[in-house]
């Protein structure tokens, strides 16, 4: 176990160091975060009108919801692009020869990237939200560890889903359509629309899908924390993390068996 952490910890550290080279990408990504929050505030201010609230969310809570949702959404790695590239070019055959588990090393690499992005996105999102609407109503520091844990679970779930889509390259020529649809499901069931805005029948269906647990769950806990919703959302988040991660490993094992190396 110690060896496992030492090996993949080194991969993670290397990924973090590599990511620091592209500082310009980081800065532009963060600028986008600020712009997105500003635009969302303008839109929902108009929607809320004189009522001052939308689907039970006050404007203050709604903007903090979007801040956490945008942070989770913008904290992305390139795991899917790496998988697509390696599988289509055949480089995966070389990767399989290396003294580590290919998929686990990609996860470690991606997690390194996510950690670095998160350390930048959280302070920028926090400052933007403070400037636009001020401190979160009813915030208590005791909620914070649960919110952070939920953010990590949401990120891990998104990561596993992206890996699963990337692994479909073993069978498909172009999987971008799967990614768009999966991404939009995550957007509509959490990022753009909190589940409370959806009709009751759709909300019922959505709660059975993994998508609300990527963005909605951490954003909901951050903006309107309650122990009830925490106990309702976080165990399912954890369950979906295990299911999608396990599924990705299963698909990888099946796909890796199809790899044939020729030459000498």
């Amino acid at each position, binding site marked *: 176990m110690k060896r496992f952490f030492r090996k993949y910890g080194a991969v993670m550290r290397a990924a973090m160091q590599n990511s620091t080279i592209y500082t310009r990408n980081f800065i532009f990504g963060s600028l986008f975060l600020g712009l997105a929050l500003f635009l969302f505030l303008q*839109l929902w201010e*108009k*929607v*809320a*009108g004189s009522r001052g609230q*939308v*689907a039970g969310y006050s404007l203050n809570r709604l903007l903090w919801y979007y801040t956490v949702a945008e942070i989770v959404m913008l904290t992305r790695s390139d795991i899917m692009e790496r998988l697509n590239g390696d599988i289509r070019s055949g480089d995966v055959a070389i990767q399989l020869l290396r003294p580590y588990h290919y998929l686990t090393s990609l996860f470690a690499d991606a997690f390194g990237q996510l950690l670095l992005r998160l350390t930048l996105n959280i302070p920028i999102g926090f400052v933007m939200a403070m400037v636009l609407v001020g401190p979160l109503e009813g915030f208590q520091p005791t909620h914070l560890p649960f919110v952070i844990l939920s953010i990590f679970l949401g990120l891990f779930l998104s990561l596993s889903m992206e890996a699963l889509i990337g692994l479909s390259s073993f069978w*498909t*020529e*172009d999987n*971008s*359509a*799967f990614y*768009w*649809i999966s991404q*939009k*499901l995550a*957007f*509509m069931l959490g990022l*753009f*629309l909190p589940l409370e*805005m*959806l009709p009751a029948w759709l909300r019922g269906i959505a709660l059975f899908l993994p998508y609300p647990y990527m963005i909605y769950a951490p954003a909901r806990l951050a903006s309107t924390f309650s122990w009830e919703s925490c106990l309702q959302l976080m165990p399912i988040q954890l369950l979906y993390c295990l299911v999608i991660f396990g599924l990705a490993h299963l698909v990888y094992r099946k796909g890796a068996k199809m790899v044939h190396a020729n030459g000498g």
Partner: protein
Amino acid sequence: MRTADKKQRPIMTGKENPGVKKQQNRNAVKQENRNAMLRENRNLVGQNSKNAVNLHLRLIWDYFRTNLASAMEYRVSFLTQAVGMAINDVFFLFFWWMVFQQSGNLGGYGFRDVMSIWALSASTFGLLHIVFGNVRRLNAIVQSGELDIFLLQPRDPFIHVHTARMNFSAWGDFVYAFILFFAISGWNPGRWLLFLIFTIAGFQSAGLSRRPGH
């Protein structure tokens, strides 16, 4: 011994050495050919601009046909991307529908108005990326050195590089735009005429805005 020989050897000029003279003649012919080619190109693009426009329109048309044939060759991939993009666009329709469920109108805009804007931007974006599929890949093409191939061809490299590829998923945007516009406008000929004019105008201005200096 050799070094001593080399040192003593006199410097030959064109007059004395027939080999050097031949080389000079060859260079002169090359330069003349190059000048002729440049003159021809200048004639083509500058003085005879009508001819140049026709030539480039034909280039775009030929690429369009070839790219479409290539799309048909990889039919499953083409359909997956196009249908996937259309479904992707439908999600935004759903988003705006939900927003307008919360509020009747936004700054004077109703659901149909926002959908008209969506239809128009999807049709413009779709047409642009169908005809000039490399529009978004120009940075990568320059970085990878692929641009060299286009610079060597006797056509405007800027038009050539953009039209060399068709973005299959853009068909999804394009078709979706027409279905959406039909759903909100029906057969109203005036609205359709405006929609088509603005689609083409948007396509042209979006294409031109990619040109350096515009």
